[in-house]
């Protein structure tokens, strides 16, 4: 890969994370008045982020050859758009990629149907921590096949810190005046505030405590970033020394851009997320959907995706083992102790979302004042 095409591929492999908080504007254009297209049997319609694994042309071709199913796509730009699309287009999709914080929401609303593990031969190989998580199961039935996962924790400059700071409390270190960066995202900020105050990350009982803790960061915070690219540029320009960051991005900063980046899951805890592949309710082609899900969690697909394009960690341990030893993510994601410290993103109510967003707006206002 040339330097540039590598750089561009950022936009692909990391699309999920970029877009996790991105525009909800796209709903209108596509949802309204989109005519339902009559589809041939043997067609698998996938609803996902654009450029996020399922739509790789080489894989779609191989899948067609192997199973006779044609894969087509529709994309969403935010998780709320994903829900809206399924609501307004019943029978329009077969497979949907749902984040762990959204799978329960979709199953409770009856938008997705229980999976039949018997039709997914690789099912048994999946990491039980993800596969059997309540976030992908509802009423004792599995509603999503764990696909890929990642961590949101702390990245630091190895030029400044001679060894890993190891704690989340370091962000509050008075010596780090104007050297800390956070992501401009209300839910993530509240999550870290909750972890720092020893509370449940998703539903902290004492929001006032979270707010007070975040406000204490005021003199340390230099920058609120919103993308991996921005993070890399500012880090390269030494605009900050330590920051909340995504695991996959930290790995890329280190390996592709040769930035002096270290990464750790604080002893207080970190944020974990995983994506599940689900079969949509009233799917016209449930067998094709199951076959496609099995294809996606197959180590063969994962290794090709990870090495050709770049991918988050697989939820199938056999797929991780199949990675070449030279692949840095193989060792990167192998620290079982760190994984135990993660809390996973769970569904939030509309009220919680609004409350977190307001809290973050208030904290940002205080930062700027």
């Amino acid at each position, binding site marked *: 890969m040339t330097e540039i095409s590598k750089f561009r591929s950022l936009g692909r492999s990391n699309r999920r994370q970029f877009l996790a908080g991105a525009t*909800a504007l796209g709903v209108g254009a596509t949802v309204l008045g989109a005519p339902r297209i009559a589809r041939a049997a043997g067609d698998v319609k996938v609803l996902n982020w654009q450029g996020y694994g399922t739509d790789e042309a080489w894989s779609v071709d191989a899948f067609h050859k192997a199973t006779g199913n044609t894969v087509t796509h529709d994309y969403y730009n935010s998780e709320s758009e994903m829900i809206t699309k399924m609501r307004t287009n019943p029978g329009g999709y077969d497979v949907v990629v749902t984040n762990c914080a959204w799978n329960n929401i979709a199953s409770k609303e009856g938008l997705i149907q229980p999976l039949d593990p018997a039709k997914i031969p690789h099912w048994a190989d999946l990491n039980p921590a993800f596969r059997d998580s309540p976030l992908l199961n509802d009423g004792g039935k599995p509603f999503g096949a764990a696909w890929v996962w990642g961590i949101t924790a702390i990245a630091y400059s190895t030029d400044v810190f001679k060894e890993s700071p190891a704690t989340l409390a370091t962000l509050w270190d008075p010596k780090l005046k104007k050297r800390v960066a956070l992501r401009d995202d209300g839910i993530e900020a509240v999550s870290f505030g909750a972890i720092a105050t020893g509370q449940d990350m998703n539903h902290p009982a004492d929001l006032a405590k979270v707010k007070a803790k975040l406000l204490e960061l005021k003199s340390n915070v230099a920058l609120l970033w919103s993308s991996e690219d921005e993070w890399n540029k500012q880090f390269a320009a030494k605009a900050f020394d330590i920051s909340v960051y995504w695991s996959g991005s930290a790995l890329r900063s280190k390996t592709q851009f040769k930035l002096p980046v270290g990464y750790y899951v604080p002893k207080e805890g970190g944020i974990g997320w995983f994506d599940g592949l689900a079969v949509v309710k009233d799917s016209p082609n449930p067998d094709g959907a199951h076959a496609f899900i099995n294809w996606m969690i197959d180590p063969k697909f994962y290794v090709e995706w990870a090495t050709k394009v770049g991918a988050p960690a697989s939820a199938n341990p056999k797929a991780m083992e199949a990675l070449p030893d030279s692949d840095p993510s193989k060792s990167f994601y192998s620290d079982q102790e760190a994984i135990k410290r993660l809390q996973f993103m769970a569904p939030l109510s509309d009220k919680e979302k609004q409350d977190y*967003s307001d809290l973050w707006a208030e904290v940002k*206002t205080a930062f700027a004042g």
Partner: protein
Amino acid sequence: MSPRQRQKWAIFGLTGPAYAWLAVTIFLPLSAMLYCSVLDVSPLVPRPASFTLANYAAFFQKSFYLPLTWWSILLGFWTTLFCFLVGYPAAYALAKRVKGRWREALFLLIVLPFWSNALVRIFSWTMVLRQGGFLDMALHSVFPDAPAFNLLFTYPAVVIGLVHSYLPYMILTCYVSLQAIDDSLMEAARSLGAENTTVFRRVVFPLSLPGVISGAVLIFVPVIGSFMEPRILGGAKGATLGMNIEEQFTVTANWPLGAALSFTMLAIVLVIFAVLYPILKRRGVWA
């Protein structure tokens, strides 16, 4: 057809298309947004909505909206003030002190930055203002011992970027009204014994005031709604009402709240104009 009727049709034919266009794109959308701002459910959610004033109440109930609004207004004020302080002398120099080919060339050079992308210019400022950036390097090449210099992610950085973006407006509007002032008028004042400063204060400046005002309006209004420049240049120090409104439309998908906030911002702009209007009218600026 009587001449009177014909004239009616001519007026209708000439103005109709332009105003129909404005109706569809400005006036009807504003009405639609007013309607949207009193709904309790976003149009994106397939659930019946009912009317509420909660979105307007939120502006006063949530503690952060008032400071955000105040900062937006201050940002507009500082940007307009500095545009005036820098731009007016430039317009004066251009209109009254430079002639012929020079004037034309300088004029073109001032207008030209409009043709480059505003966002790229703003991003370029980050390269100039940051530690190790171009300004820092220039400073250290002259004073090697100067302390490290970093303006990026500060309030002044946002103002610098905004002044840069909007300065040409001020220069243009002031230039137009300054150029219209007849030189013989100034000569006459001088020959009547007025000092240069008096001529400026009593004759030139009052006559150029309409240009200053229109420049100020053209700058103040968009700056109050700015969200892109504060975000890129201000870092954690850039927070405006505009940024929060934009987030209601793009991140939280709460259109009714965003619409209510937009209208609140509009109301604030109108209040400011209403307060200024009598002053300007008295001075004969608002013809």
